[in-house]
């Protein structure tokens, strides 16, 4: 264990704790743009800098181990100046259009500018010019909003392992790019959207969700993906009784199977819910055609016909197929219906298919 002083408060932390974690334990709110607990460290955004007595330079707390006896100030004048200047530098390369941005209200750049009162950039000059249309149907990439945190690159490599994106060019021209700068479709991208999940700003957004509502407008409902057996936890975003998007939950406890990671189906495959082809009325075949009817009619007719068959041919002339896509409760009820109500064990589902 080591003891250090942070903003006048003494804290004791295990050896190997990062200065960032130590500051947070001490109750200091340290801003970060490139840090992500699940990804390798970059140490590049420099927003987490703090002042350590005896050090000439400011120290990036995310990549510096806490040391015995350190005297740390997390909001000194120099620290605040550095953070402000970094934000202004980022703003100067940022297409500032919060009024139409998907991430308005859920954007770290906004949050930190608000926190440090950064209205405008004194470094305005050449405007960002990185935007390039990517014609895939899932992900919009607008690098005119990119703040170069490289979290997307790391998530792509370290969560999914697709290695679809990396840095291209150097210095101010550095930009996130696929190999040969092709569209994502022609890269090794598998459209898992992990990059969207980690992007702290509106640079990467889901094309499927675009324009359907901002995070703060939506209600969030934690549930489980409807596709494969992995059972990924996800959060449905709801606005006006419609599902308008999907969020990851990056918490082991709430999202035990996937810790927020999703695949293309889980992240982008939800808009069938409001497909115009959804069945909205019961149908009964009349004169060879399926016609919409009331529930009363459909249910009465179903019961009547099932009873007839049962009376005429016996319980075992009826079979029931339950579903690997409905809930446990529904599966239970349907097998109960088969066994206790119809009186047959002819129940199965396509577990094997």
């Amino acid at each position: 264990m080591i003891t250090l002083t942070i903003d006048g408060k003494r804290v004791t932390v295990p050896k190997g704790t990062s200065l960032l974690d130590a500051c947070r334990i001490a109750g200091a709110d340290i801003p970060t743009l490139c840090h992500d607990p699940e990804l390798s460290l970059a140490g590049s955004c420099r927003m987490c800098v703090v002042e350590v007595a005896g050090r000439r330079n400011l120290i990036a707390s995310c990549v510096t181990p806490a040391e015995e006896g350190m005297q740390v100030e997390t909001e000194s004048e120099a620290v605040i100046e550095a953070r402000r200047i970094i934000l202004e530098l980022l703003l100067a390369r940022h297409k500032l259009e919060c009024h139409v941005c998907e991430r308005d209200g859920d954007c770290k750049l906004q949050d930190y500018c608000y926190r440090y009162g950064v209205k405008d950039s004194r470094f305005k000059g050449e405007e960002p010019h990185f935007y390039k249309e990517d014609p895939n149907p899932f992900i919009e990439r607008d690098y005119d909003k990119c703040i170069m945190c490289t979290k997307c690159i790391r998530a792509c490599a370290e969560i999914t392992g697709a290695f679809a994106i990396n840095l291209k060019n150097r210095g101010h021209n550095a930009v996130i790019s696929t190999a040969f700068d092709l569209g994502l479709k022609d890269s090794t991208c598998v459209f898992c959207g992990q990059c969207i999940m980690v992007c702290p700003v509106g640079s990467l957004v889901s094309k499927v969700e675009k324009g359907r509502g901002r995070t703060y407008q939506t209600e969030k409902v934690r549930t489980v993906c409807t596709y494969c057996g992995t059972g990924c936890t996800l959060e449905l975003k709801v606005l006006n009784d419609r599902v308008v998007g999907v969020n990851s939950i990056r918490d082991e406890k709430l999202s035990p199977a996937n810790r927020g990671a999703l695949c293309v189906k889980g992240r982008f495959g939800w808009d069938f819910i409001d497909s115009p082809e959804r069945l909205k009325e019961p149908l009964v075949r009349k004169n060879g055609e399926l016609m919409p009817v009331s529930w009363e009619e459909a249910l009465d007719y179903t019961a009547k016909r099932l009873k007839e068959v049962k009376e005429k041919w016996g319980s075992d002339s009826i079979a029931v197929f339950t579903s690997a896509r409905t809930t446990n409760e529904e599966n239970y009820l349907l097998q109960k219906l088969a066994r206790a109500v119809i009186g047959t064990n002819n129940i199965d589902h396509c577990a094997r298919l």
Partner: protein
Amino acid sequence: MNGEKRILLEYADKINPEKAEDYIKVGGYKGLEKARKMKPKQIIEEVKKSKLRGRGGAGFSTGMKWSFVPEHAPVKYVVCNLDEGEPGTYKDRIICEKNAQALLEGMAICALAIGAKKGYIYCRGEYPHIVRLLNNAIESAKKAGVLEDFDIEVRMGAGAYVCGEETALIESIEGKRGEPRFKPPFPGVEGLWGVPTVVNNVETFACIPYILTHGAEWFASIGAPDYPGTKVLTLTGDINNPTYFEVPTDYLLSDVIYKLGGGIKGGRKLKAVQVGGSSGAFIPPENIHTSIDFDSMSRIGASLGSGAVFVLDETRDIVDVATRIAKFFEHESCGKCNPCREGTFRMYEMMQRINAGRGSEEDLENILVLSRVMQKASLCGLGQAAPIPIETTIKHFREDYMRKLM
């Protein structure tokens, strides 16, 4: 006698640097021989006692650096930094051209001290002839049997200035994008391929054989007490005698210019001198009466750096010079961290504006704030040092700037 003291360059042009035998004839590989009879710890002690400090620019104690390498790691590397990307600097090239075997010997001694079996020399991309020279030198040393089982491989650099930064250099050897890593962990603990690695400059390594051969006390007695030994300087700019010299470290900067350099071209007056390469501070004439050693330079807000000395005469437009330097850094920033990637770019924009007569006093203020933040918050030495030439020119030559403002 002009006051030069030649140790590394004593036999310049008198021996063939490729030939181990030539070097052995003038006393070479004695240090290595001696080191083989010592325990690793003793070698490190000897280097510490010599007070040798890194000649790559940061001036860190070489013995200390070696002592940080964990003893029991199974694999370790020795890496020589021959990237020499600093414009106006070519002293490492000269050392190789004149005395390559001393570099190899120094690396081999380091390998013994830390327990490495393999070394790399990372050579600047613009020096293909040095790669050839070094390969021949290595072959000759191998033939002579002096290196024993220590293996040295020469790698060609990627042509980026930032690859001279030791961790970017390591990334580059690993075949990755040449971007600095954050420190700690320092290369001594986690370097090339993740194992302990010593990275030293060519000149640093080349000093080692002489320290072992003649003893630490001898070395420590030369030049400035806290930065002893000699330093190879390269002199460029408006100077009568633009060439290289090896001087003791307590040599005066004014003597470099007026004695070794033969004074300013055309008898003009000195405007400023920049020491240490592009990222060095500009020193006004009133401060040149200072010893060139690391600490004395620091005291006047400058740095010895790689030992490049760039002399400007009174006719030079210092704002224009500073703008060019801003452009250099804008081009060389690797782009990893925010303060430098965006800062060098905006710095160049503002400097261009001022230089073209479109700048305002506000620009000047903004440059100073930006300078401060870049120096304090950039990830590596490039971003930290990039604003220094600009800041020092504003400090010492403010009127030159004011004249150009709108």
